[in-house]
């Protein structure tokens, strides 16, 4: 089983004719994702990797049925594309672009809430239900089916950890990238709820980092509602306060979002926090 997406999820690619869009359309098709159409204003009628291209999301949905969309475009155009997709009725949007203005992101989130839609990202690698479908830009080969759910704020670090798991013979149910920005659609707590309900997921890995309070909120949720074991790793122990460590969201401001407060909260909730990313797979093995 899987959460959010499965092999039947029909996906549009917004910004399909761009370099990133076309490359990852190929990668997603290779993985098995059901891509039914692409959107690129002014480029309607073309094909990319055999996928028909439309001028707008509305036009795409006049011709194809779809539930989800992945967005590739420069940040200044992302809000409009996301609003369009939501208005047109899509219920799951994966926002790949980074550097989307915060006020744009907040408008997207407010409208998604109204439309009861799920936003993954922005500044995310997307999500993958191992072995059946991916809507994202993660490398295909590390994501093989297995019993562990993974949810992460960062990309490459998540691949590193999933790579370790794979090397240890442990596969994943679904792997979700929350995104590295300050305002993102999904938080740990949302994904934890889904994993708790997912019969195939037997343990969950949280990959967090400094900044924000998503890990602390997740800890409170784990303590109150999670029956499945949760293992965590947090990046940024050595980061100085007040500095943005690459991700817009990875910053300790006004004494909030420190490594220590997160570890304390997670430990208090019974979550095992690995001190090195390379030690996660053995912690996972111990709880499976």
């Amino acid at each position, binding site marked *: 089983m899987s959460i959010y997406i499965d092999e039947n999820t029909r996906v549009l690619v917004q910004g399909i004719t761009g370099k990133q869009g076309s490359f990852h359309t190929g990668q997603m098709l290779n993985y098995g994702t059901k891509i039914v159409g692409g959107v690129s204003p002014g480029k309607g009628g073309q094909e990319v990797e055999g996928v028909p291209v439309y001028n707008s999301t509305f036009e795409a949905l006049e011709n194809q049925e779809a539930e989800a969309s992945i967005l590739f475009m420069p940040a200044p155009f992302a809000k409009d594309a996301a609003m369009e997709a939501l208005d047109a009725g899509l219920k799951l949007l994966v926002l790949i672009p980074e550097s989307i203005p915060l*006020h744009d992101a907040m408008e997207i989130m*407010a409208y998604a809430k109204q439309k009861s839609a799920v936003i993954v990202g922005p500044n995310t690698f997307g999500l993958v239900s191992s072995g059946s479908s991916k809507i994202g830009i993660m490398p295909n080969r590390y994501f093989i089916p297995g019993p562990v759910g993974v949810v992460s704020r960062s990309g490459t670090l*998540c691949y*590193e950890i999933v790579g370790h798991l794979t090397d240890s013979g442990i596969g994943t149910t679904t792997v979700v990238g929350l995104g590295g920005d300050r305002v993102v659609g999904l938080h740990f707590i949302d994904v934890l709820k889904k994993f708790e309900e997912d019969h195939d997921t037997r343990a969950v890995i949280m990959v967090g980092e400094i900044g*924000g309070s998503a890990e602390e909120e997740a800890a409170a949720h784990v303590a109150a509602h999670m029956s499945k074991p949760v293992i965590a790793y947090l990046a940024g122990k050595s980061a100085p306060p007040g500095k943005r460590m690459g991700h817009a969201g990875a910053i300790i401001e006004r*004494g909030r979002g420190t490594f220590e407060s997160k570890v304390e909260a997670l430990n208090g909730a019974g979550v095992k926090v690995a001190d090195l990313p390379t030690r996660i797979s053995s912690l996972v093995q111990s709880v499976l």
Partner: protein
Amino acid sequence: MKLYEYLGKELFNRYDIPVPRSRLVENAGQAGEAAAELGDVVIKSQVLTGKRGKAGGIAFASNPEEAKKEASRIFDMSFSGFAAEKLLVEEKIEIEQELYLAFTIDGSARCPVVLASLSGGMDVEEVPEERMIRWPVDVSIGLQPYMIREICRLMGVSGDLQKEFLKFMPKLDRMFKELDAELAEINPLALTPNGLVAADAKVTIDDDALYRHQELPRISEKTALERKAEELDLAYVELEGDIAVMANGAGITMATLDMVQHYGGEPANFLDFGGGADVEKTSQSLELLLGTDPRVLLINIFGGITRCDVVAEAFVRVKQSQGIELPVSFRLIGTNEEEGRAILEKEGIKTFNSMDEAVRHAVELSA
């Protein structure tokens, strides 16, 4: 992008938010002239670090002589390594009460939040939770008058002061939104006989939205090296140690630094050169790091979109063009790792498969 107080107040003024009369000065003489014009004054160092008051960067003066003296003193000071290039000389206002008001962004609620408190003037972290009212503003309707009345009720404010807030908050809200601010903080917000006045201004503009605010000045707290990295579109932060670190992805770069520290080393920097960089950009990243003259170079590549052969090629190019004399610990796996390794082996460079081993090796090399 953090704005100096005087810039924040210029913006306040543009949005009809009351601020004290003031003069911006660049030397002690001008400070004296400003005091002659304004009477009793407050002299404030224009630096971006917080807590300049505690550090002695704010002074009062009741005559031009005193103002000159204090201005001289402040110009000679250093605030977290930065000297003030300008001072703001402001009329001293009659303050009946010091309040706190800020608009900021709440990542948990995914929307702006108003922070308001009757306990102004002190550090925001020191205000007890229950004295700080937090009101998330639903983006789909924006700040509405009832929210302001409700914030006032929760603060215990009514009558004339509530009316003041009903006039004041919508202006700050509008500025916050129109200028793509991440933070617009007024501490203290001064209640004077003429109503509410912004006695300070801490405004941060969202870097990612600067492209649509060409009218705003560009201010950087970054070091020269950080600015150079910014031009190359690299995420770079200068640190204190001696092991230069380069990795692809913010999370894994942070984790690499953490691991360096875990094994007893000290990272010299954070450098995330991003996903899918080409030979050119990768070379530039390397050159930037080598320019910092570190003791050891640690490269940690987990190739996804980033191709290992591209990284290897860039490394060889830089090595051949300018030489890489310092010891290197190189971890390289993922997309095209065989090709990458082959390129490096021709040059006699060994790579690690494991991040753990690579980091430990780097720490050993730095010892």
